[in-house]
């Protein structure tokens, strides 16, 4: 495969990886704080997409400039995160915190099933989209292949901002340190006077918003249809598992691996494209059973 194809594969992989990362980031964040793998996270992605699409359509109907769609996407995502996130945390997660891990999984799975159908009842099964903003931002050409600025610049930069922003929040701000504390040891943090339930609520809202943001940013380039939630859920799991649970920076690298691996596959052996995420995950876990970036914790006895 020659240099230009290599370049193309890179270009294609990036924006996909960026979306994947945003969603996985939310998932891994929630896991870190609650120690629950939220199976409903995929629905947040889908809902984010639908809400954003609805906003976009409203804006288009109102005849406002499509540029407004960009902020609308973000706002839509944040709203989705706040509403659904709070409902999830208050209604479910904090109530199953002490339950058997299996029941926790099943609980979030139930939430997923419910959200999926609600979403279908609200938005129906016709595909949704808001593509105007993309055409507006225009395209740029690399190795005489045309890319949209939106995919090549907007999405990846949002992902980078999210990563750096979250890093800064967790390490530099007081509230962020509380989150980190709860992540490391809930009991101790609580003992030190951290309001754990407030922290979890906050974290889950952020995590949910990130998931929704993934969907919102996808809306302009893809059709939002029933089923994208489940799809994205499995993929973001693959990312999180590959990176190691709760690994933020790791998730970025895992997402890149999977995103790029996928696009290279389309050029080299299209038939394995679908399998790439799983193959990568299996390969990594073969070598590092805890995922790339988590250390094997020897149990204190």
């Amino acid at each position: 495969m020659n240099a230009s194809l290599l370049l193309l594969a890179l270009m294609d992989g990036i924006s996909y990886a960026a979306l994947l990362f945003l969603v996985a980031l939310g998932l891994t964040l929630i896991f870190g704080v609650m120690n629950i793998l939220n199976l409903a996270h995929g629905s947040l992605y889908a809902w984010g997409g639908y809400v954003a699409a609805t906003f976009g359509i409203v804006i288009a109907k109102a005849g406002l400039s499509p540029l407004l769609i960009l902020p609308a996407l973000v706002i839509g995502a944040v709203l989705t995160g706040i509403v659904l996130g709070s409902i999830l945390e208050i209604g479910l997660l904090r109530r199953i915190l002490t339950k058997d891990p299996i029941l926790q999984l099943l609980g979030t799975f139930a939430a997923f099933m419910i959200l999926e159908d609600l979403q279908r009842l609200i938005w129906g099964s016709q595909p949704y989209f808001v593509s105007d903003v993309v055409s507006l931002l225009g395209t740029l050409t690399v190795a005489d292949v045309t890319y949209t600025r939106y995919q090549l610049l907007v999405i990846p930069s949002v992902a980078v901002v999210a990563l750096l922003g979250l890093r800064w929040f967790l390490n530099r701000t007081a509230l962020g340190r509380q989150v980190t504390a709860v992540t490391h040891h809930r009991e101790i943090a609580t003992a030190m006077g951290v309001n754990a339930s407030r922290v979890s609520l906050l974290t889950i809202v952020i995590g949910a918003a990130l998931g929704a943001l993934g969907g919102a940013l996808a809306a302009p380039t893809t059709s939002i249809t029933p089923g994208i939630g489940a799809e994205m859920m499995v993929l973001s799991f693959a990312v999180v598992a590959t990176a190691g649970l709760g690994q933020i920076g790791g998730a970025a690298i895992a997402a890149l691996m999977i995103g790029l691996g996928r696009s290279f596959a389309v050029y080299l052996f299209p038939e394995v494209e679908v399998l790439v995420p799983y193959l990568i995950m299996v390969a990594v876990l073969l070598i590092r059973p805890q995922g790339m970036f988590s250390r094997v914790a020897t149990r204190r006895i």
Partner: protein
Amino acid sequence: MRLRLFVIVLLAIVLALPAYIPWLKTPILLALSNGLAVLGVIALLRAGQVSFGNAMFVCLAGYTVAFTARAAQVDALVLILLGTVAATLAGALIGLFMVRYRGIFFGMLNLAFSMVLFSVLGKFGAVTGGTDGLRFDRPTLGFVQMQRDGFETTLLIIAVFVALVAGILVQRYFRSARGQQLAAIKTNETRLEYLGISAKRVFWGGYVLAAALCGLGGSFFALTQGLVTPEMGYWVRSGEIVFIAILGGSGHAIGAFIGAFVFEFVKLYVAAWLTGAWQLVLGAILLVMVFAAPTGIFGLLERLLRPAPALSEKRA
């Protein structure tokens, strides 16, 4: 013992109903096949492990049945045997790799494997019939060629018998020392190792058992439908199986079948009555279970069935 009575009544119903309401044969057969697979997953649940990929063994057995039935004139009973054996061997092999993982990693790796199988079956249409799957003509059953009706009735009777035997054997296994060692994996592997017991080996046994039961279920499923599709191995199916296990309750083998029947008919009727919302209803039911009845339907029945249960039986 009331439990025994309960099972007998259940069997009577399962066998009697279709005589009056013939269309029930299909759902009951499907429920029984699901139940067998669930029984397997329960073994893993007792070790505290959730697999999001066990449908792969159901699927594998199904395709073994389909391929053989298309290749040669083989009796249904032999097909069931072959399907189960294939799944067991696969389980034994994959298990060697899986026993190293726990928790979400275990779940995800199973999912990964099942997705690989799922896509391979979908891709190589020339061999596997692609996503439309493989259809095969009704084989002889007990070396007799039958019409659909007779075939299904006989298959149903066989399935009930197999389910009963499997249920009894698995329950015995659960109560055996090995079965309790498996359950101990859930709470303390370190201690197992410090007793000189290999947690991995014990878990491997459980994993193979699960695969075998899934294979058994898959074989019946394939024979009931006369068609196998990659869908049988899709991860959502695996999720369903776990769902049913929790619904029925993993405290006792019979939970698997209770769960399978409730699930089958709830889904059937909900889908028929409020179309497009069956997931919602199932989800709601699951939520209620998680909070109100974490030990599943069996957990609820247990008090009625067994006045003074051993504590270890109370677990979900």
